[in-house]
């Protein structure tokens, strides 16, 4: 891996984050409504509104406001949460572990279920199993997270009473939300694992392995799977960002106290500093994940160097 690549890739990421700060800053200005009026509520007098606009710096030129926002953000200062009366960054960061737990659960579920189905589909190509798993993949990708979540609650919490409907704390709280969030990814994994595996199985080195008289299992696991998984792993890395996005809906449906739910609550409560911080933290996470995937991939696969 060249240092040059690392530096170039890091600069790209930084530029992207800078662009995100512009968008996050503009959030306050492009969303409908005047922040000062919304914060003070319907009973405020015009004088109170003007005072708050002044103290929030909303009366200053846009560029000056942005530069001040950026300089504060670089120092980790995203302002005070209007609602919680604490630093906005603290309000967002304390919810990060819950989001990571949910994302990890969903990820594990998707990988553990999706990959074996995909591999078996490729091995038993055009069989009933293959058609069945393709149907599952299609359904998994087309079901809205929101609908699936509520359906699982109705079946497993209300009807069967096997699992809690919402909240966090015990391991069983994680099951329905993780399955809901992971289902979308399962579809992708099944399809990609299958096609990648099929491609590898048609390669000459696999034929050579079989010709050597190796057991089919060894051919599949030791020779084919290893190479077939490279694109799958790349995809998984990139999908982590998508999972974080999907977590916003899943967390809201299941009252899972993560960053996504905190963001939705902040949007409802017009807590702008928290919304801005949450969007920026999520963006940094996604950019960071993509950066890591690219760097690791660069290291693993000499062809893209």
């Amino acid at each position: 891996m060249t240092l040059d690549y690392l530096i170039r890739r890091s600069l790209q990421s930084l530029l992207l984050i800078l662009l995100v700060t512009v968008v996050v800053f503009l959030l306050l200005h492009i969303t409908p409504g005047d922040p000062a009026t919304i914060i003070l509520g319907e009973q405020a007098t015009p004088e109170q509104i003007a005072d708050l606009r002044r103290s929030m710096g909303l009366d200053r030129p846009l560029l000056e406001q942005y530069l001040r926002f950026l300089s504060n953000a670089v120092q980790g200062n995203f302002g005070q949460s209007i609602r919680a009366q604490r630093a906005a960054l603290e309000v967002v960061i304390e919810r990060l572990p819950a989001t990571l737990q949910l994302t990890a659960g969903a990820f594990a579920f998707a990988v553990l279920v999706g990959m074996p189905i995909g591999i078996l589909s490729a091995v038993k190509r055009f069989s009933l199993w293959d058609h069945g798993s393709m149907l599952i993949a299609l359904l998994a990708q087309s079901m809205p997270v929101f609908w699936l979540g509520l359906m699982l609650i109705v079946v497993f919490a209300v009807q069967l009473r096997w699992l809690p409907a919402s909240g966090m704390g015990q391991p069983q709280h994680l099951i329905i939300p993780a399955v809901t969030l992971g289902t979308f990814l399962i579809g992708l994994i099944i399809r990609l694992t299958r096609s990648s595996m099929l491609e590898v199985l048609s390669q000459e080195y696999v034929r050579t392995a079989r010709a050597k008289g190796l057991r089919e299992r060894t051919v599949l696991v030791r020779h084919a799977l290893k190479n077939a998984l490279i694109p799958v792993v790349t995809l998984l890395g990139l999908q982590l960002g998508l999972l974080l996005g999907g977590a916003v809906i899943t967390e809201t449906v299941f009252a899972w106290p993560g960053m996504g739910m905190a963001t939705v609550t902040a949007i409802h409560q017009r807590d702008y500093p928290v919304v801005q911080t949450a969007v920026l933290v999520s963006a940094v996470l996604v950019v960071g994940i993509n950066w890591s995937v690219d760097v690791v991939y660069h290291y693993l696969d000499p062809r893209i160097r």
Partner: protein
Amino acid sequence: MADGQGRKRKERTQAGMNRRGFLRVAGAAAGAAAGALPASRAMAAAAPAVIRPTPELVVAFSVDPGHLDPRVEAGVPGFSMMYPHMYETIVWRRKDITPDASLSLAERWEQLNPTTLRLRLRRGVKFHNGEEFEGEAVKLTNSLFTAPESKFPTKSSMMVTREVRVVDKYTVEYLTSAPSRPLLRILQFQTMMSPRALKDLGPKIATNPVGTGPYKFVEYVPGQHVLMELNPQYWGPKPKSTRLTIRFIPENGTRTAALESGEVMMVTNVPPDSIKRLQANPQLEMRTSVTNRIMFVTLRTDRAPFNDKRVRQAMNYAIDKEAITKGLLGGLAPIAQGPMPPAVFGAHTGLRAYPYDPGKAKQLLAAAGASGATFNLGVPNGRYLLDKQIGEAIAGYLTDAGLTVNFENPTWSSFVTEISKFDKAKYDGYLFGWGVVNGEPDILMREHFHSKFTRRNAYKHPDVDRLVDEAAESFDEAKVKAAYFKAQEIVWDECPWIFLHLQPDLNAVNKRLQGFEARPYEWLILTEAYLT
């Protein structure tokens, strides 16, 4: 530590499933999925692991207030968590919102003169940190609520207090700059906070409440729950449930599912379209109340043709309020029979709603030369119960009556920005709700009908101004009521509003929950609630 372990154990019981139970369920599920067991057998195998609620009380609200600081706006859910569970105000009220000394931290009060209210404090009351409740706490708390940096939503109403004088350890006097009869009811918002806790905790008190209430704060987990436990030192009747957990479940479907599955014993803000389904469940029932939140369309009385009383009356005749409340709100929202909700002090009970009379509406509009006039109607989307649908119905009825209605239905943030332009707002009228939580009508009457304050509708009537001032300054109850009655009669006739309905408070409970009833002031009081 031991307490923490106990909690963990109990939470596990609440979820109803230990590891072994979980494995049993998982096994049964896997078996059923693989077709190894018929579904009925799989369910029978899982039956012992059914989630059972514990005797502790767990309820679910729709909103996480984000803090538990009485000095800052917390909305109905936040105030419901704090009062009177953990914090108490110096004056508390009966179910019908009448201030009652036997329920309050002030055990007696008297109006020494028009500008001095003397309160005798209850002895032996302690804050949860052991500090004794006395006069200095009252003085300090009042100064916090009225300080320039105070963000308390009804700070302006408390500004009437000039000074709190501590006469002795258990006697305080509120001195006002002008005679103020509403002060006693306004004090229902004045929370007593521990001076020592304020000093020790600083800003952290916002998430670590220390009050005098029947429940002590245990923990607040943002996005999850508030947990409280019985305060054994409490001066009044002890609550019936030893522990109270208020969970936050924002999604409507999930919240009602948590009630149906037995995880929680009560849910707030039931969506009207779920009521029938919940009522069909033999284990559940609705506990609703009519609140003091009156819904109306406020009209710009300074813009033609709405400056003509006949046009405004026509708009009241034009709308079939019964169809709206029955068709959209399941008959749970009574039609407003006056400008004040009936549970408010001084509400006129002799007025009757404008009947639905489209013929008369058209006639009045024609007489005023306003047939075909344009009416710009603003309705927020998602702020009040079914506001969009109600707004659409209103627009439809007004169009039928012959007005040309421009209907706008923006999000609350756009809406509130627009209406805060007051006389420059583009709306000729907008849908609005006004809650009178403390039962004191002074702010409602001033804000909407007293010419010095009516920025929203520019309504002016010298008699109403005089009567509202008179009612605020007089301590003679009969005289106050007479003044309010007269003012309401004028307003009812003049129609600066299209009077609509009273918003219901929609809660659903498991029938095992006893001792809870919804109140007209929207706050949810769980001190007497228990499970059978």
